[in-house]
């Protein structure tokens, strides 16, 4: 990618309030997913696998764990002599300090950084989504179409379309209309929150946007509509494959459960597009002769003595003798004691489900989020 220099800007400051206790101490991108990952591992690994070498991570909400997880990016080979990963947190200037006010504002505040890297293109990513995507292909498309801006879109079911930012395109993929959460959607192509801009074009619009007091400084609400109104070359790049926004506890639980079906499209076991993460170097899992394990994913350091079905266990989970775990996601370090039963639940880090305790119903409708303080029903 020498000729087309690209810098990726990963927005990782989101709080994700609807995830409730899951984001009590961490930003949404740092929420654990899929047995050993955190959500941000997906865009980070995608960027690494796409050959991107310059990446800025914009953090804001409770960044400590996220910063610790990312470090200097060595797990994604972003620890480089030239370029590499930088964590960009809000900072103070001559006029005092400012928080990032919106997605576009976060980029605006870091214009100096982007100018310093001096790219032709800026790739805007969100740290909230789970998917595998080759950004290089999207960039090739952007260059081929000679676009000013390319937005990655995915086909969503028509009845859900009104929850997304919807693109209407002509036969060449050029965006003719953009509507944020429309009541009557004209198409079912939803924005995935992944944009490629020509840097000079984006820079001009960011500077214009910041001067507009009515703007909410958001890509979807402000920058994209304004650029479209000015008749810029804007194209939709259709992505096919697994893409999930885990906005709520239920969708978080579902997305994890998706991994247990044989035909799941994410396919974590694919060697060609690996997802990298911080490695804790824990010993292998130990399954005793009492244990029953069916249709489950288990990570290192677990000790399984009980009954496990359709569940995902993160690292160092202990399931004691006679304990039963069904349709559940158990995060690192949780202990399910003897005879306890956990169904349709997300059990958070370090929670101890006490001897004989029962959480959830086997064929129940509800999903339960179990933290040290409380159990939330969704």
């Amino acid at each position: 990618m020498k000729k087309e220099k690209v810098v990726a800007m990963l927005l990782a400051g989101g709080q994700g309030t609807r995830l409730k206790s899951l984001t009590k101490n961490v930003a949404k991108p740092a929420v654990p997913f899929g047995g050993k990952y955190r959500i941000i591992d997906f865009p980070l690994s995608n960027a690494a696998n796409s050959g991107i070498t310059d990446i800025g991570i914009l953090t804001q909400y409770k960044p400590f764990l996220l910063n610790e997880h990312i470090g200097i990016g060595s797990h994604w080979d972003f620890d480089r002599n030239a370029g590499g990963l930088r964590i960009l947190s809000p900072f103070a200037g001559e006029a005092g300090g400012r928080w990032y006010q919106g997605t576009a504002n976060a980029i605006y505040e870091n214009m100096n950084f982007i100018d310093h890297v001096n790219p032709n293109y800026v790739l805007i990513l969100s740290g909230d989504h789970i998917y595998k995507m080759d950004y290089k292909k999207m960039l090739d498309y952007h260059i081929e179409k000679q676009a000013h801006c390319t937005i990655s879109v995915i086909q969503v079911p028509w009845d859900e379309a009104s929850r997304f930012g919807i693109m209407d395109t002509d036969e060449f993929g050029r965006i003719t209309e953009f509507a944020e959460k429309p009541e009557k959607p004209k198409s079912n192509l939803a924005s995935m929150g992944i944009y490629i801009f020509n840097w000079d074009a984006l820079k001009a619009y960011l500077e214009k946007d910041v001067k507009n007091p009515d703007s909410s400084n958001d890509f979807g609400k402000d920058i994209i509509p304004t650029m479209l109104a000015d008749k810029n070359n804007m194209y939709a790049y259709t992505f096919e494959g697994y893409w999930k926004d885990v906005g709520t506890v239920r969708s978080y639980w579902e997305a994890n459960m998706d991994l247990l079906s044989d035909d799941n499209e994410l396919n974590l076991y694919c060697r060609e597009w690996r997802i990298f993460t911080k490695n804790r170097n824990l010993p292998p899992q130990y399954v005793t002769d009492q244990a029953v394990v069916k249709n489950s994913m288990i990570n290192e350091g677990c000790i399984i003595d009980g009954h496990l079905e359709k569940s995902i266990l993160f690292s160092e989970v202990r399931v004691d003798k006679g304990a039963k775990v069904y349709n559940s996601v158990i995060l690192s370090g949780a202990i399910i004691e003897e005879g306890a039963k956990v169904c349709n639940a997300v059990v958070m880090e370090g929670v101890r489900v006490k001897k004989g305790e029962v959480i959830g119903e086997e064929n129940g409708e509800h999903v339960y989020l179990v933290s040290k303080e409380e159990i939330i029903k969704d």
Partner: protein
Amino acid sequence: MDNCMGIISFSNDLDKNFGTLCNHRPASMLPVGGRYRLIDFFLSNMVNHEISTIGVFTGTKIRSVMDHIGSGKPWDLNRRFKGLFVFPPLYDDHTAKSVGNIHLFHSNESFFSNSTEENIFICNTSMLYRADLEAAYDYFKETDADVTLIYIKVNDPGGRFINCDKISIKEDGRLDHLGTNLGTEENFNLFLGSVFIKKSVYLKIVRDAIEKGTANYLKEALMNNRRKFKFNTFEHLGHVESIRNIKNYFDANMSLLDSDVYKEIFASHGTVYTKTKDEPSTFYRDDAKVSNSLVANGCILDGNIQNSIIFRGVKVGKNAIVKNSILMQKAVIEDNAVIVNAIVDKFTRIEKTSYKKSTPK
């Protein structure tokens, strides 16, 4: 443990006992416990006890060593100062002899004399254990010994430790003799092959052995001097496995299925670090029946697995049976295949027509 450097010296002497397992790797690089190599336990133990200069004498099968250890990053040994030093043999070393390792220690004398540490910890990788090096090192310093040997008291009616090193100790804790265990005694002191030694004494002993031609091995040179310097002993308490041939290599792996041994080997004295592989979690399919087994990440299991050690990225197909076996990294057991009492090496594919059953020697 400042002021102490660590040495791991591979010997290829035992390789012949492991058949094809050691065609391309030295015995010190044998896979152990689902995701480790034997050397990981020693490197990790030293690093966890804050030894920050570690020299590795690789022996002749270097490829496997370089691939695994690399820059030493998994052990935080990729340092600007100190860190990991790897010493492959010289291609045509005029000082080399056909037997022994003393010339290796001699030809790398500058590594020892240039380092700032005044003490050396030398370990032997044919034993698997997690030692409290801190306590041993304190004892070595407090007693102002020139050499401290680490040993364990064993009761061995079954002869597990035959041909291992046995030491006799005087009443004051000093070393008396070091010899080979022929199995004549049930209770004896097993030498673990690990010693602390003052660098000044080490340099004298190695030079002396070369000049006088009195020893081929470092161990031999040390023993020749046991009356001249102060040699004492430190008792290790814990679990020890000797890995000298296929049979006890197999047993050592199986011993990890005991939860007490698992806890001691994996959890005492800090994490055991190894080269990580970014494997996803292990997937147990609907028909998987796994019991009493150690399973690493990245596996996809659909068969019947019992009393086995499953390394990273192994696939076991439907209705396959794996019993009392070690399946190394990326082994594939196809549907309906049966593996009993076997060691399956890396990348091996067992097809459905195969039926492997043997009684280990």
